């Protein structure tokens, strides 16, 4: 693979935009996102230009089906003025340039697009099955037209020479965890390869969002990844708002931000509990779960839902938090968590299992386009909250917590840092005042991109609306959909099977978010 390496000298965002515009034409420019139309011929060149600029990451890639399939690449720009650049190109025929050769992060999306739209990267590299199970009884509907021929069996780890075998695990795994199939390819000792089937949970959310109004759609959107309901909801709402050209009231945005940070808090607490479970530290798990439960009760007390469902709505929020309850309850719950984590950091049997376990290098994270704590633990300061041109995170800049090492312990430390940061932010947002205003949504035909930083990393949403305000294409990309692709590399850095649960806990992803 000859992936393009970024040049040392970072061009400014405007330079890149100009470079891309030179190849095509500027479509739209709102808040954080710039849309450039690139002719299919120049797509490869454009991808080179973007991937070659340091601080630019391929954040997402998806297609939409009209009379002709349109391929959109979302580039996250992370240095001087963070934001997003969307390139859209109309693809005639079955093939488009092999983008994953330029930006490896595109591979999973290439597979997904092939499944859904039947267009594939030129060069005929084998693509994996992602969402559509091979054993599906009925023919599953796709967003676009069918692929000419179905993708090859996922990773088919037919171990030629038979010097390794596949250790099957799942889809029904331990109690109280999501369905997921691990194919653990091992030579008896080391982890040769690890691959995942997530289609046991593929619910076709993007498919069923079509034809709904954004207000109806957000109900399903936030259930795409329930543990990041606020983040996904916000990203989706923001996309809708961008499309409809409305800006929610600052108070409403602060409400969202409070909810978002609460969500981050309880997720990190849950991850801590999972880490304890994976390392066999039951007492720590119990302590962390006490903190988790208290945080969830804070959520319930302040927003009326333990998992903050239904808080975010297009145009604003459905309800404001009970600020007094929050001020009253949160510090206690947070101290509970903090005491537990402090004790954990003092427990060698715990820390030793975390250190040098499931290592990912910054290089890997960058190439794979990883986001969230996983990426930040490798030293990449990537955070979608920085990309806010306005709103609470612009007024109260978040200081991004990073760590070096990229191992489980680094991820744990990032989580700890972020919990403290979240509490600080919540306090500031509350002090500035939160509200439940909701601007109503006049329908109009347009498209928009939205984003939010969930506890698992950047969530992206993109919607295209028709004149009736109904969705023609909605793209949801929760953090999980990104970070699972780093999981097998992290596991392969390890030779011990028993570390895999620890690594999984430290990623703290959901299958739901991946399978949607």
């Amino acid at each position: 693979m000859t992936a393009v390496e970024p040049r040392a000298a970072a061009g400014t965002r405007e330079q890149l935009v100009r470079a891309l515009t030179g190849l095509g034409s500027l479509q739209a420019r709102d808040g954080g996102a710039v849309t450039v139309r690139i002719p299919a011929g120049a797509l490869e060149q454009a991808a080179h230009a973007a991937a070659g600029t340091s601080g630019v990451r391929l954040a997402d890639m998806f297609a939409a089906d009209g009379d002709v399939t349109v391929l959109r690449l979302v580039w996250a720009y992370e240095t001087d003025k963070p934001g997003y650049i969307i390139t859209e190109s109309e693809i005639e025929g079955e093939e488009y340039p092999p983008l994953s050769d330029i930006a490896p992060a595109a591979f999973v999306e290439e597979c997904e697009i092939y499944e859904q739209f039947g267009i594939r990267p030129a060069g005929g590299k084998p693509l994996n099955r992602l969402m559509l199970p091979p054993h599906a009884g009925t023919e599953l509907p796709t967003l676009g037209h069918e692929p000419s021929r179905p993708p090859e069996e996922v990773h088919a780890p037919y171990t030629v020479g038979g010097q390794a075998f596949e250790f099957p695990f799942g889809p029904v795994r331990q109690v109280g965890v999501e369905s997921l199939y691990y194919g653990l390819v091992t030579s008896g000792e080391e982890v040769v390869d690890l691959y995942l089937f997530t289609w046991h949970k593929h619910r076709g959310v993007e498919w069923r969002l079509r034809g709904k109004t954004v207000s109806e759609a957000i109900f399903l959107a936030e259930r795409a990844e329930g543990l990041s309901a606020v983040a996904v909801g916000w990203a989706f709402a923001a996309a809708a708002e961008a499309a409809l050209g409305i800006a929610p009231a600052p108070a409403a945005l602060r409400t969202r931000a409070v909810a978002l940070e609460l969500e981050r808090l309880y997720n990190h607490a849950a991850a801590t509990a999972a880490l304890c479970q994976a390392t066999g530290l039951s007492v720590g798990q119990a302590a962390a779960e006490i903190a988790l439960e208290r945080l969830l009760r804070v959520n319930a007390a302040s927003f009326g839902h333990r998992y903050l469902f239904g808080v975010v709505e297009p145009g604003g929020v459905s309800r404001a938090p009970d600020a007094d309850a929050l001020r009253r309850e949160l510090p206690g719950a947070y101290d509970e968590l903090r005491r537990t984590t402090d004790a954990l950091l003092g427990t060698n049997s715990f820390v030793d299992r975390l250190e040098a376990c499931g290592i990912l290098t910054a290089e890997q994270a960058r190439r794979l386009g990883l986001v969230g704590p996983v990426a930040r633990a490798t030293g990449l300061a990537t955070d979608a909250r920085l990309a806010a041109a306005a709103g609470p995170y612009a007024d109260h800049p978040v200081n991004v917590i990073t760590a070096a090492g990229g191992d489980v312990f680094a991820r744990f430390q990032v989580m700890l840092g972020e919990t403290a940061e979240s509490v600080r932010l919540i306090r500031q947002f509350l002090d500035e005042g939160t509200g439940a205003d909701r601007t109503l949504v006049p329908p109009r035909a347009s498209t928009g991109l939205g984003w939010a930083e969930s506890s698992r990393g950047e969530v992206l949403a993109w919607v295209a609306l028709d004149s009736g305000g109904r969705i023609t294409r909605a793209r949801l990309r929760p953090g999980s959909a990104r970070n699972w692709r780093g999981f097998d590399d992290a596991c392969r850095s390890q030779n011990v099977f028993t570390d895999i649960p620890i690594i999984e806990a430290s990623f703290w992803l959901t299958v739901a978010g991946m399978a949607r």
Partner: protein
Amino acid sequence: MNPLDLLYGAGGAWLAAALAGLLAGSRRPGLLTCCALSALGGAAALAGGGWSLIYGNTPVVTPGGAAQTITGGPLQLQMTSLAGVFVTLLGIVAVAIAWYAPRYHEPGHGTAVYLAVYNLALFACLAVLAAGGMVTFLVAWETMSLACYLLILRHPRSDASARGAFWFLALSEIGFLLVVVAFVILSTKTHATGLDAMAARAHLVNGGWRAAAFLLALAGFGFKAGLVPLHVWLPEAHPVVPADGSAFLSGLVVKLGVYGIALFAFRLDPVGGAWPGLVTMGAGAFTAAIGILYAMGERDIKRFLAYSTIENAGIIVTAFGAAMIFHAYRQPQLYAFLLIAGLYHVANHGCYKTLLFLEAGVVEHAAGTRDMDRLGGLVHRLPRSAVVTFVGTLGIAALPPLNGFVSEWLIFQGLFQGFRTGSHLIAILIVLAAATLGLTGGLAIYAFVRGFGIPYLGMPRTRQSAAAREEGQPIGGPALLAVACVALAVGAPVVLAALSRAGRTVTGVSLGRLLLPGELTVIPAHADFSAFSPTYLAVFLGAACAVPTLIYLAGRPRAGSTSVPVWDGGMVRFRPRMQYSAMTFSAPTRVTFDALYRPAVSVRRASDDPAGRSGPVHYEAQVTPVFERYLYRPVIRAVEWLADAIRPLQSGDVNLYLLYVFAMILLAYLVGAL
């Protein structure tokens, strides 16, 4: 009338079989005749060998009179009890293979030649064992080597068989050279060519010469016996021979090497002093351990079995070496006991290894491959073979109640009594050897759990192995050997009685009652040490298995019970790739002994895209053939270099050659002039 006369019959029958094979083997009836004759010869050899165990040594006879025969010396024949053990084995193996061959081979020209050569090889082996003089021995030995070389060349077009045959021939010839020198030393020093005469006058030779002769013989025969590092021909040759051929090589030819060692160690020149024994024992133990470790690294059933042959040869030689030590330390009983134990293991290994190779042939024909990782689930497809193979596997894994266990137990009992030498150092060294054999035994069980489990149990890994059928596959021969294995276990007392008689003719020590005080109990040479009865053990284990079975059958719940598939985590279905493979099964050993294996690991994928791999994963861990690479390759290179260095002399240009001649003459004149 003595055993020798029977053996004339056997030899004649095999020559006839060879002739029949050569003339008519290309058609089914001729093939059958050939095999029938071969079996007849086998039966005769079996009878003769068996008889000679009881009869003792026959006098040396010279059928051609003292006249110089084509052998360049008088043809001297003699049947000794020591050789009798091997002749008996030869008989059993010959019968089993003769029973097996007609179904295994397709009639045809190649087969005809092959069978002819094979019967010739049988004859030559018999001649080796019946040789009463050194010239006869050497001629027979060389004939045997060449015959085996032709056997290995069954499919001369394939490079593999050419390589295997070459390795065999090259090493045999080197070995032969050493053996010749050893014999020459003895005969010149003893002024005798008859083996008896040599043995009788051996004490006249001074220690240095005798030691030299012994070491030469040990090395020379070691090439045949597969002593590490002289073993390299086995894994190369066995895979390319037809199954019965490799069965013959492992079951017998290797044993002839062992016979040669025994011949020198115990009969011709029992060297004084402990160190030759120590050398022999050390070589044996080393061979055993290395052999089984390499066996763990093999996926090809035949190569796997070949390495296990090396291991067993090592065990036998260890026993012989220990026997020599005890001899040097005036422990006649243990000396005799370990010799007997070693011979016992010879017989056992001859049976089950032949069996396993024959069954490997069945598997190869039925499933189209010998690669364990492409087999699987054969127990449902080849049930008869599975049962027979299982018996052989129990035997070779030295698990009670089968024969392998008996002989290995005896060997261990002998080694554990190393303290009786009185010398601490020697005692420690012997126990060290015992420990090595212990490790070997443990690994052997591991290896054969794999060797049986991977091909026979689980799911078939390829379509071919799923389509394997038993119809038309030979079974008689292996079954006979399975019976022999059980007999050798249950009938241990009888066997030991016979062997102790045979041993007496060599060692002069009579163990009879000391070894077998009761009818069915065995005492390892010293009553105060330990005792056990293979027969009772077999019976007891049989009962121990039967009782729970009966209880289960009796107490099986009558109530209706539902059977549901195994809980597989909700997978759509198990796939063959999800089962332990041969190489993953042995991965722990590979990791533990990686200093020896030096595995070179390579992982390849159809697309090694860092953003999500795709396509088949190809994982290989190649074991480095240490001895080939670091011992033989340099030698080969040196030889090649020498050849290159000489080549320029021969330009093929006549004038140049004339110049050489002229120069030579000139030189001669000059020399003459001076």
